[in-house]
């Protein structure tokens, strides 16, 4: 693939602050197929970093720095035009749509039949063959997680962000799902940023690990 060599997410001299005090600063580039792991204590700003990456930083925060996706600057691009997919610990499937509907919702426009086939094949690959018409509420946690993953991937994002994506799964399921996610990230050659509290996630990601500091106590208190 040609895009493989170009695919990258670059965080250029980011400084995130809340009410004048610095929360974190970061300068990183993630190449396609790589996973950058962010760890750190609760409240250190991990989710806030992801919010900045997708362009949904709450008005409380102030950010300085630039964001490049595939060499294009997108710092001020509206979130829905960024092509950055998000995967949370909650699958957040849409309850009014079927499994198929949830995935179709995410896919680009196109011929109905082609889309349908693509969905069936993808479901097949993750062991959910024949579940097209099921309601998401009636799936197990692991199945929901896989549908959520497919939903992100089939939307053809140019990068993917994972916010503690496996923390609600038990250890067996966690390992399987994790493997699946990383496989798919490699397959689509996506730059990925993963937030996690779990060491084993970080090891499995096999990428660079950044640990954010807790806010110094005196600073947090003031």
């Amino acid at each position: 693939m040609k895009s493989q060599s170009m695919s990258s997410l670059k965080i250029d001299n980011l400084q995130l602050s809340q009410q004048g005090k610095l929360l974190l600063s970061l300068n990183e580039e993630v190449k396609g197929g790589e996973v950058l792991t962010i760890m750190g204590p609760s409240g250190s700003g991990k989710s806030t970093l992801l919010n900045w990456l997708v362009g949904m930083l709450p008005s409380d925060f102030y950010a300085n720095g630039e964001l490049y996706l595939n060499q294009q600057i997108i710092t001020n691009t509206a979130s829905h035009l960024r092509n950055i997919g998000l995967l949370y610990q909650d699958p957040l499937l849409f309850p009014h749509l079927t499994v198929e509907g949830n995935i179709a919702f995410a896919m680009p426009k196109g011929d109905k039949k082609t889309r349908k086939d693509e969905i069936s094949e993808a479901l097949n690959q993750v062991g959910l063959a024949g579940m097209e018409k099921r309601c998401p509420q009636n799936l197990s946690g692991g199945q929901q997680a896989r549908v959520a993953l497919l939903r992100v991937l089939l939307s053809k994002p140019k990068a993917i962000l994972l916010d503690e994506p496996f923390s609600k799964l038990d250890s067996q399921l966690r390992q399987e799902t994790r493997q699946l996610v990383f496989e798919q990230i490699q397959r689509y050659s996506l730059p990925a940023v993963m937030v996690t509290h779990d060491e084993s996630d970080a090891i499995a990601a096999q990428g660079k690990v950044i640990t954010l500091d807790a806010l110094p106590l005196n600073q947090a208190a003031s």
Partner: protein
Amino acid sequence: MIVANTLFTRLVRNSPYLLIALLVVPVLGGLLGVLLPAFGWFPALGANEFGLFGFVQLFNTPGIERMVLLSFGTSLISTLLAFVITVLILASYFNSPWLKRIQRLLGPILVIPHAAAAIAIGFLITPSGFLSRLISPWLTGWDIPPDWLFPHDPYGLSIILGLTLKELPFLLLIALGVLAQPEIGKTLKAQHKVASSLGYCPMTGFFKVILPSLYGYMRLPILAVLAYSSASVEIPLILGSNTPPTLAVAIMQWFNDVDLSLRIKASSGAILQILITLSLLGSWCLLELLVKKCSTSFLVNGEREYGGMLIQRVTHLITTVMLSVIGLALVAMVLWSFAGFWSFPDLLPQQLVTLHWSSALLQMQTPLFNTLVIAISTTLIAIALTLFVLEAEQQNTKTISAISGFIIYLPLLIPSIAFLFGLVWLFEQVNSQHAYINVVFSHLLFVLPYVFLSLANSYRRLDPRFSTVAASLGVQPSKIFWQLKLPLLLSPILIASALGLAISFSQYLPTLLSGAGRINTITTEAVTLANGASRRTSAVYALMQMLLPALFFILAWAAPKLFFRNRG
């Protein structure tokens, strides 16, 4: 929980039955009292043979089709409009601070009685009203009031305007209430975020992701609004045409006619009214199905942007127009209440006088006294009963059954015009001559549901461990209730009381009918004056109608703050 057997606990335990009886007996009795005459049984007239002549008479009334059409059309269109505008506002301002601001602007309108709102809108749109003054003569060249039909237009446009403006804040606040619930709101917002990260523009994301879930929570309130507006009397009476009026207004006029034989036709009309309301609810559900069916493929077609900017602009426009209409109507009413001589195209009166206020306040003493006495007695009963029922719920450690939960809202769902006349007949049967008591009794039907709705959440959220701890210390249940729970719930109780008072203040039909026309309140006077000669006096009464509930809401809000500040 094992509860001691004292007078207090017995009282509490039996209170749910009293509540149910107080609501079911009048409504069902009232319906019976309409059903019998509708089918020809009306002994007072010597009619004691069942038959359909009431209906024959009804359908021979000139203009009856128009009455039905007006009732059906105005309520369906206004509810549809209110719903669409609510959705547009939510979609356009979903993640914007404007949503909170609009909510704050519209909230107070909720407690403005229908009659006062109708009077205010009338001031805006009459030929010599504020609207035509605003655009004359510089734009229109009018030196004399234009010859337009508003209000009282035969198509019911003024009614639709009035109903929409009253329904909109209600639906919007319901929707915002759903979004404010921690679990639902948070999930919906996160799902919207997901849609956004999947490339959906905020507006399309709202329609495809939030609306289908949100609608489920808004469905019942929408149906309630639809049912209410199909049979409401105040707005069509003040803003509608009389040739012919809506069915509900016509029924009221027949019932109040000196010619008692019209009672049979009126009762048949009440049955027809119920059928209209039911068919409206049915039509809404059909419409819902249709939209659902047509939208399934639309939801998942992958289209991410449907002219969101255009819709947003249209919504800005609608919102601005709506807020201006409300603002201007209020300004117009205040101006009229102080106006001296005010010739036509002038925007402002030549002079401002306080004469109308001082003379109206003098006249107003009896109605004001009646209004307060009735509202306070009704609210006290409603609050006490509600608290007892909620306490019974906690002592039984289970919430009241679904059926009882439904019965509480019965008086709000059944068109009141359909059972109030029967209720009056019932009063006559049991020979209840006491107009005050009858009025309080009928107000209770409408005050109780709202007070219950308003208090139930806070009471149920009260941490049960408080009472467990107190009980383990050997404190009597009654003492826990009076000295622990009630002080903890002071604020919600006061708010519920203000709400109860506001609902009672605003009642028109129940006061008029149960009081047999002998008890005047601010609201009945305001409605009578609305189509009368003096616009200035009418303005004062309508303003009083708004000021009274506002005053009590401010009191309810401020009192706990003062109370607790004294404690330090």
